[in-house]
Structures are given as C-alpha cells and as structure tokens.
C-alpha cells in the first residue's frame, strides 16, 4: 500500500512533460475525431410520430365484459380512400385520427363478407406536442365524445380520453356489440 502511494506521488516526476503533452494531444485529437464522427447535425428520429387510438370490440356476458372477435373487420375512412383491413377474428384495433380536423369519421364493417356497417364519428381536441429536435412536432388528442349508428353496434364507451404516444395506458374505446 505504501509503495503504491509512493508510486502515485512520484509518477508525474517520472514523465517528460512535453511527451505527456503530445500523448495527451494525440488522445485529444482522437477523442475529437470520435466525437465529431458520432455527433451529427441532427440525430435520427427513433420514436413514432403518429399516435393511434386503440379500440376494443367487446360484449356483455353474465355482467362481465368479454372480447368479441370480429369475423373479418374493416375500418373505412369516410373522408379518405384509405381502408384498414384487419386479420380474421380480431377484437383490438389501432386507428389514426385526423390531425387537420376536430373529428374523424369511420365506417366499421365487423364482417366484410356480409357488407353491413356502422358509422362511427370520433370528436376530440387536438394538442400540438413537441417530441424532440430529431422528430419535430406531432398532435396528441383528447377524446370528447363518440357518435355511432346502431345497426350492429350496441354502444361505445370511452375508457381513456388521452390519445398520445404512451402505449402502456388503458385502451381508449370499448365498442359493445
């Protein structure tokens, strides 16, 4: 232990300081080059910039809420030619909301084989949200109310009104059949 202390104490005296400087300079230039190569003018965006409303198809069974697997579900956007086609026997859906308007209209076809559909209109407030300098801005939404026709749908319940980038929250909407 004593010899270690002595070594630490006298180590600087053992070095030629100009040499030490040039060694340090080399280290510094290497660090500089490394930092410069790692840094960029803009970092890449590594998070989603579009948020989705999570909807769940359910039904009442003996006073409890159970999944309803829809046979061949399709969600049609009324104001756009886009159709979201989900796999067979699906109960959970992720749907985008229109960031340029305060509502989004969908036609929901639970079974595309029979063609019957309901209209679902989601009303919300938009909130501009800064994500990062890498990703810029996006919109988050606060659901206010939901209207729907009642051909196949029984009712719709809002469980979580905040539609944001946090995917670990409760689903936003339950659709009862």
């Amino acid at each position, binding site marked *: 232990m004593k010899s270690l202390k002595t070594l630490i104490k006298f180590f600087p*005296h053992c070095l030629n300081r100009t040499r030490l400087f040039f060694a340090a300079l080399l280290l510094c230039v290497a660090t500089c080059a490394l930092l410069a190569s790692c*840094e960029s003018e803009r970092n890449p965006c590594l998070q989603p910039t579009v948020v989705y409303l999570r909807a769940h198809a359910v039904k009442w069974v003996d006073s409890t809420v159970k999944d309803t697997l829809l046979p061949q579900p399709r969600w049609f956007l009324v104001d756009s030619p886009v159709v979201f086609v989900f796999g067979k026997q699906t109960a959970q859906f992720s749907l985008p909301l229109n960031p340029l308007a305060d509502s989004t209209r969908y036609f929901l076809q639970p079974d595309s084989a029979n063609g019957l559909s309901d209209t679902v209109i989601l009303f919300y407030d938009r909130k501009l949200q800064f994500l990062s300098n890498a990703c810029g801005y996006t919109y988050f939404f606060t659901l206010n109310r939901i209207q729907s026709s009642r051909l196949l749908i029984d009712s719709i319940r809002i469980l979580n009104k905040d539609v944001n980038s946090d995917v670990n929250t409760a689903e936003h909407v339950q659709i009862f059949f």
Partner: protein
Amino acid sequence: MLTQRSMYKYFFSLLLLLFAGKAEAQADSGSIKPNLHQLRLGVDVSRPIMSLWIHNRQELSTSLDYYLGRELYGVVEGGFGGSQMDYPDLKYQSSNSFFRLGIEKSMLARMFPGDWDMLSVGVRYGVAFIKRDDAIYAVTDPIWGTATGRVQGKNLSAHWAELTAGLRVELLQGLFAGYTVRGKFLVNQSTFHELPPAYIAGYGQGEKNTVFDFNFYVLYAIRWK
C-alpha cells in the same frame, strides 16, 4: 441519464478527492512553492475545428484562471454561439452567451517553483442566456397531409454544474496548451421540455440533461511578483 442523487454522489466524491489532494498538495507545497502570481488567458480552439464537421453549430469560448495558492486556481470561462435547425419539418435558430465560474485543483506535484504544468480536477457552475427565435414546424400525416404552424420565440436561461479534469503544459515561456474534459449536469431541466435549443454554446445539446464534452485550449500566462 443520471439522476440528481447520482449527480450529488459524483460531486461529493469529487469534493473528497479535492480535500484529499489538498492535504497532499500542502505537504508538497511545503517543499516547492511558486514564487510568482499567475493569470492565464486561453481560447478554445476545438470548437472552430468541430464546426468543419458540424456546420449548424457555432461557439467561441475563452478561459481565464488565476492561481490562488495551495495548487488551487480560480477559473472564469465565457463565450457565445448559436445553432440553426433548417429542416422541412422544423426550422428555427438560437443564440446564447454563457459564463462558467469554478475552481481547479492541480494534482501534479511541482518540480521547481516556476513549474506551472498542471493535471487538474475541478468543479464549475455554468449559466447561459439563450434567445430562441420563432420556430416553423410541419406535421406530416401519411393519410391527411401536412399541417404547418409557428411557435413563438422565447428567452431562456440554462443552469448547470460541471465536473472537470484537465491538463495544461507550458510549451514555451508563458504559452500553454491543454484540454479539459467535462461532465455537465443540467439543473433546470423543466425549462427545456418545450422546444429546447438544438445546441447551447457552453453546455451542449439542449435536450440532454447530462452532457460529456471537451475543450482544447491554447493559453498565455502573465506572471508578476
């Protein structure tokens, strides 16, 4: 990301190191003491070099230190700079001035009274006064198209603490070169949740609560009896 608790832990460890070093240096300075006062002025030459790679950031940084005795140096650093974001989805610029105040402890034993080389550790408090201009943003949705808007400019201030380690070597009479590596810890993190400047001169990326950085200085020392 470092928590406040771990920041305090690092500071406490460094203070212990400073005090330990102080006891050691007192023993050393008992044998070899400097015979002059020294004031040293330096310029960071690494930033103009970095600007050759990273064009949207600018910084000019200077350093002033004075020997206080017992191998301690009082340090004042300052400078200014700015950054530009010029992309289709986000466009703004910011500029700022900054100051750092702190103390540096030389851990290198003197070989003779006029030996001013140093291998040091230190602490700093830093503050930056930032002006961020209006920002223009565009949110592009793959289905519905693009929404654009403007976010009003803002004056901000950033406060941070630093742990430093560095080297200074006297190459010619009074002319030094050396570097400082820094760990920086932003204190007022909540100020920067909404559109933090891409780069704060003196600190680094405004979005980060912890930044590691280095400066390479060329310095000139003035000495008197």
